[in-house]
């Protein structure tokens, strides 16, 4: 009886059934898509982080950048110093080329002994230290000022040399400089399990091995190698020393760049940058994911000056279109799907109430011939529930179709996580050591070099929870409308059957 009545009723008012089901379907499809894209964006964020911090890195330890103290400025290793003997002197200009290895932007170095402190903490499975650096190669030609000084002083309003000097950054006419920078990461060549190289794929050659300590060998990011026109077997000038390129690596996530352009053995990176015994980041793997919070607390206690970040903290440091997408999804997507969901529920509720009102005489008659309130309410609720489920099924199909389309388009999102950055990361802090600051004409290029921009293809996954959400919402919407409609029906007096004669 229940099913017969239900089927007949829903078939009898196909239009209302369709409207309610379509409303529910749209809302549920939207929720499914937003949910799936949101988890796709989370995955993308995770893969960006992975390419920077490596697989299995649960925590990173770095140092808060301290503002440069007075007198310290200029004392760092970053200053280019061209002596009279540098470069080759031609007739009227000096050609110079010099490369400097300096602390990476946004990172501050600290004593490598911290690594032992970290490994000594309970719950730490593995840890490795790295030193994030930037190599600046400065090459160009400087005019011979002496030669010019010997000439006649330019007359005011004269014809040739009176224009303000144009050309190089120094403002001296006739000079041409090129500044080339790339990021360098000194890593412990023996510890591949944790750290930035744990998430890369060997593209060519070999990776760094324990025996490479102290050897002038380098591994390059594959895309950097391509753009710099370098291959295995070539040499690269880092901090004035020629390194042999022994391998190239690429990210395991498609289209993603790895954490750094160049990877060197840690000890050489330290000595070339003048940062002996210093590191900028420690990558920590916890023994269990439950223990991360405890390990974080212990690390913070053991290293009071350091800043300890979890993957979750680091996710906040992911920027670029990825973070835009993430914000868009979590704000607009959430509210939009919520609004549509509420609208669909309201439609379902209003139609159910309207249906009960229209069927006053019908329900009154059923009550008059002995149907209990429960039976009448069950009928109304059953109808709404089935309506909701029809909507849910349609919504699931629609939502899956939407996800399929998104995965077909496979939009690419770019995200950059500043290496070794403290959240709120001080890219412009310029590493307190008196090196070039990121302001000025170099700023953009340097900032680009410091943060690895990673391109990730958005993949919206279909999970059990997505299906569960669809069914759950359909049931919820159906029951909500059914409960309200049923409540109305339960309040009908059976005497109404006799009262409202058509």
């Amino acid at each position, binding site marked *: *009886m229940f099913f*017969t*009545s239900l089927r*007949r*009723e829903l*078939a*009898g008012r196909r239009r209302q059934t369709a409207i309610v089901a379509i409303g529910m379907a749209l809302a549920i499809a939207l929720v499914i898509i937003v949910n799936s894209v949101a988890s796709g964006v989370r995955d993308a964020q995770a893969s960006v982080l992975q390419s920077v911090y490596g697989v299995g890195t649960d925590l990173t330890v770095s140092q808060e950048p301290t503002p440069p103290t007075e007198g310290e400025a200029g004392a760092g290793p970053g200053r280019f110093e061209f002596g009279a003997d540098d470069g080759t002197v031609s007739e009227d200009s000096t050609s110079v080329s010099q490369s400097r290895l300096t602390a990476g932007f946004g990172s501050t170095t600290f004593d490598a002994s911290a690594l032992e402190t970290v490994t000594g903490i309970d719950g730490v499975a593995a840890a490795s230290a790295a030193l994030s650096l930037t190599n600046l190669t400065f090459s160009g030609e400087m005019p011979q000022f002496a030669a010019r000084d010997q000439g006649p002083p330019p007359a005011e309003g004269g014809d040739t040399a009176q224009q303000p000097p144009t050309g190089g950054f120094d403002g001296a006419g006739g000079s041409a400089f090129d500044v080339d920078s790339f990021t360098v990461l000194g890593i412990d060549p023996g510890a591949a399990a944790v750290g930035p190289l744990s998430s890369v794929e060997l593209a060519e050659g070999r990776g760094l091995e324990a025996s490479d300590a102290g050897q002038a060998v380098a591994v390059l990011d594959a895309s950097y190698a391509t753009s710099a026109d370098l291959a295995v077997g070539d040499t690269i000038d880092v901090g004035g020393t020629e390194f042999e390129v022994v391998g190239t690596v690429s990210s395991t996530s498609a289209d993603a760049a790895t954490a750094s352009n160049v990877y060197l053995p840690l000890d050489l990176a330290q000595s070339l940058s003048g940062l002996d015994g210093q590191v900028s980041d420690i990558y920590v793997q916890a023994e269990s994911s439950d223990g991360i919070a405890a390990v974080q607390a212990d690390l913070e206690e053991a290293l009071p000056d350091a800043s300890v970040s979890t993957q979750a903290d680091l996710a906040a440091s992911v920027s670029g279109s990825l973070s835009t997408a993430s914000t868009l999804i979590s704000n607009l997507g959430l509210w939009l799907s919520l609004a549509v969901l509420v609208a669909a529920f309201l439609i379902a509720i209003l139609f159910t109430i309207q249906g009960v009102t229209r069927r006053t*005489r*019908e329900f009154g*008659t*059923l*009550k*008059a*011939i*002995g*149907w*209990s*309130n429960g*039976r009448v309410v069950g009928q109304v609720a059953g109808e709404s529930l089935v309506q909701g489920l029809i909507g849910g099924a349609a919504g699931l199909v629609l939502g899956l179709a939407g996800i399929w389309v998104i995965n077909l388009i496979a939009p690419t999102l770019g995200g950059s996580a500043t290496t070794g950055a403290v959240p709120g990361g001080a890219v412009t802090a310029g590493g307190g050591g008196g090196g070039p600051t990121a302001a000025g004409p170099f700023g953009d290029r340097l900032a680009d070099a410091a943060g690895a921009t990673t391109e990730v293809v958005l993949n919206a996954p279909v999970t059990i929870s997505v299906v569960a959400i669809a069914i759950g919402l359909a049931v919820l919407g159906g029951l909500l409308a059914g409960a309200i409609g049923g409540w109305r029906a339960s309040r009908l*007096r*059976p*005497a109404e*059957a*006799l*009262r409202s*004669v*058509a």
Partner: protein
Amino acid sequence: MYTLEHVSKTYSQSKRRVTALQDVTLSIPSGQLVAIQGPTGGGKSTLLQMLGALDRPTTGRLTLGDAELSHLPDRKLGGIRAREIGFVFQGFNLIPTLTAQENVETALAPLGVPAEDRRRRAVDALASVGLADRAAHMPGELSGGQQQRVAIARALVKEPDVLLADEPTGNLDEETRDEIMDLLEGLWRDRGLTLVIVTHDSAVARRAERRLHIKLGIVTER
């Protein structure tokens, strides 16, 4: 057997109070055919609702057999309606989305009759009102008289003790009216029903054993 002792019913609508039944005392023995007549608004339907356990009197005592309808909770009254009382309405009140047979079956649903039994009894009931061949028709496909026959089959399929009819022929032409009255009278005689019919129509009332008249809530015998 109905007994009514000083039964009154007042409806309060905001400030206005309407006394639909005023101190009614009477009894209806089992198996009697009673007609209730009176001017519109006199209280006929109200009395029928009291007899049908659809509503309780404001004051007074009303019993059907052992059951004190005036003081039972809603749930119990529902059970009594399901088992013992059949209703026939002026507007037929069939469920428009169900076939004739399914409409008849709705009366058996609250009694927990198994589906197979329900079907058989519904078909039998339809046959007894002369509609064996219309079981699969929707109410909209039936004439007024046929619809009222389906409603009578629905009222009688559970084999109640009492059949209450509020203007059962009010929407029918004279010829159909007589057919329906013949049917009701035949069923009443065959099954020993207590049959109470509210009617404006003297031709209908003349067939009753006993005629009551209600005016301004006061019941008088004719």
